[in-house]
């Protein structure tokens, strides 16, 4: 292993590259197919990887514009993809800001302020965080169904209710941010306290500026999590113009109205921004997941 013969090494290298490339081809096959399908004519036709008669029809429709075929036939966009995107982005941004605010303040308290029963609360939070929201779906539906009789703004089919539910994502992030605050030198708090700062002032003027990097990570993670959520949104949202991307995309592949080509274009259009954001953030995600969780 330490002393390797050059010839063996070369064979090994070729093998490694070969294996990786074949594997990559298999893994990336779906993406290539989708790109090809989005330029293909019609919604059913099967064809080659390189479309024979490339058309922008599906892309024009995905952008919400009617498309005129060569035959003069005008096709209306089947679903409001851009509106769904806007819904997803709006809900994602508001929920992320909310989660961030609550999680940062709580994490600071858990890290620095002496509170009775802190250990128990932290353990409790950690245990609760592991319960998937899917367990509560029936109740979430029942609660908001009852609430919609009181105020429609907080009922079914309301973005506000959806955002409120997403706020429950704070638990994991309290832990992540607390791990970060724990690594801040205690001398800083003491200096602030000697200057007469209250705990809130210490938080506001010392810890908050320090926490900007981890807050950015938490923000991106929450945003991605919210945009990707399907179960909660599908239970709460019913009308087509209120849907988020995750709920709406499913309509394309309905058994009775199978819009494969239109779906491909819409999927790339909506998936690309999230993918790019994720690729930029993924480095932090992994360190956050494996370290933040273990720091106790």
């Amino acid at each position: 292993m330490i002393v390797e013969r050059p010839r063996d090494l070369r064979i090994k290298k070729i093998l490694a590259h070969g294996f990786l490339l074949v594997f990559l081809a298999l893994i990336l096959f779906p993406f290539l197919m989708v790109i090809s399908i989005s330029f293909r004519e019609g919604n059913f036709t099967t064809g080659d990887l390189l479309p024979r008669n490339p058309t922008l029809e599906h892309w024009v429709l995905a952008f919400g514009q009617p498309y005129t075929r060569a035959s003069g036939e005008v096709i209306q966009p089947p679903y409001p993809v851009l509106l769904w995107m806007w819904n997803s982005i709006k809900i994602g941004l508001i929920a992320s800001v909310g989660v961030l605010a609550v999680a940062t303040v709580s994490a600071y308290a858990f890290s620095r302020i002496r509170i009775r029963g802190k250990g128990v609360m932290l353990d409790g939070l950690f245990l609760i965080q592991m319960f998937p929201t899917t367990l509560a779906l029936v109740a979430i539906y029942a609660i908001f169904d009852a609430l919609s009789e009181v105020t429609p703004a907080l009922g079914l089919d309301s973005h506000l209710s959806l955002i409120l539910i997403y706020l429950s994502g704070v638990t994991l992030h309290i832990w992540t941010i607390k791990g970060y605050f724990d690594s801040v030198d205690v001398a800083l708090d003491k200096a602030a306290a000697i200057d007469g700062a209250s705990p809130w002032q210490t938080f506001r003027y010392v810890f908050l500026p320090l926490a900007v990097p981890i807050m950015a990570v938490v923000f991106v993670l929450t945003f991605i999590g919210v945009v990707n959520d399907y179960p909660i949104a599908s239970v709460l949202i019913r009308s087509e113009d209120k849907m988020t991307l995750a709920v709406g995309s499913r309509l394309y592949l309905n058994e009775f109205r199978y819009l494969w080509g239109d779906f491909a274009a819409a999927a790339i259009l909506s998936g690309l921004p999230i993918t790019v954001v994720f690729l930029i953030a993924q480095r932090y995600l992994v360190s956050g997941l494996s370290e933040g969780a273990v720091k106790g």
Partner: protein
Amino acid sequence: MIVLLLALGIALVFGAKRFYGARFIFPGIAAVLIFIAFPVVYTIWLGFTNYSSFNLLSYERAVEVLLSRGTVDPDTETPFAVAEGDGGYRIWLPDAGLLSDPVELIEGEEEAAPLAPADEPAALLAPRDAIPLRGGLQTLTLTTPEGVELRNSGLRSFARVTPEYRRTGEETLERTEDGATLTADHSVGFFTTPEGERVPPGWRVGIGLDNFERIFTSRGVRGPMLTIFVWTVVFAALSVVFTFAVGLTLAVILQWPHLRGKAFYRIALILPYAVPAFISILVFKGLFNQSFGEINLILEALFGVRPDWFTNGTTARVMLLIVNTWLGYPYMMLLAMGFLQAVPEDHKKAAALEGASALRVFFTITLPQIIPPFLPLMIASFAFNFNNLVLVLLLTNGGPDIPGTVIPAGRTDILASFTYRMAFDDSGTQFGLAGAITLIIFLIVATMSYLNFVALRRAAARRSGRPAA
């Protein structure tokens, strides 16, 4: 009540100096309690009720609905005509010589007007012109001077309406049709006749352990439940094994110092993780499509087979695992790359010097060192896949169906998707039964969470015990 508790909490926390520290934690704890703990408890509580599409309402609402029902008596049908006049329309009943007060006849709005004896109005609308007013006529109730209520019963006629049920006591109704006495039965949440016939709609009542009894004794429920439970465990375990194996293999190759182009491979291999899962799952749904999916086209061209991915239980399960491995391996790969770096290089060198082959070094030195820190994450991954609702719902929606079940259950259903479909599919919303199954899932998840918690604590203790590693 929740609002009250919340207000009390805020007052207590922000009012008292003693609870200064709690001010910071309060919002977080409140959010967790309201949005996670409370719904979970409430779902489980629903498991002890008969909440479903038949028993949706409260008792008061159910009584209201029953009392508002009426049947039109065809023997009393009488023709009518509409007169247009100042302030709206008037209804003219020529047989009785009655004319109504002016009505607006707006569609969808309930309206009532008294009738009074009068002469025939001069300007009557032709029957054809009255047809557009049908919507408004249907919601109109006319009252004769004798107090009999008349409703529209057809294009040309009004008729007397008799209520189907009459309230005869606090807990009893009388059915007009046959004079049967209906008694409110609060143990089942229905009005029942003396013969035991249940009259829908019912209302929500606690039914104790009935739902659990159904799960464990009714053959149509217990059979599929067992199949689904076994499949859920198998699915979650195999998903962890496959993603771990693929992820670790790739991580080991990428860690090889002689390999070039690592950055490119890394980004390309992460892609399945970066694309939103709901999009990739739907893409796979299309690619796997039996009749015109690209995967079957290629398989047929190469090997001459066309597996029926969606109608055969076994191939559907294989497909689910393929897609889940595709979705999940990058996460394991990223984690493995981190943990592999922590394995000391000199251990491996020492083993190699002793003449151990690369494979042997991997299995005796590297693997044992990365398994302990991996364990909690693998348990978490198992728990995640145990409830991997999105994958099942979007890819197969549970199908193909298991034949001979009382409630919709499919070969690829996992417990979570089974519960979801039971509660939210069109075929019948059985919230109560879904709540009962949720309790079972909750117990399983709680056990896993606790195990994970213990494993994490051990990992943390080991780490702090040996800071050098």
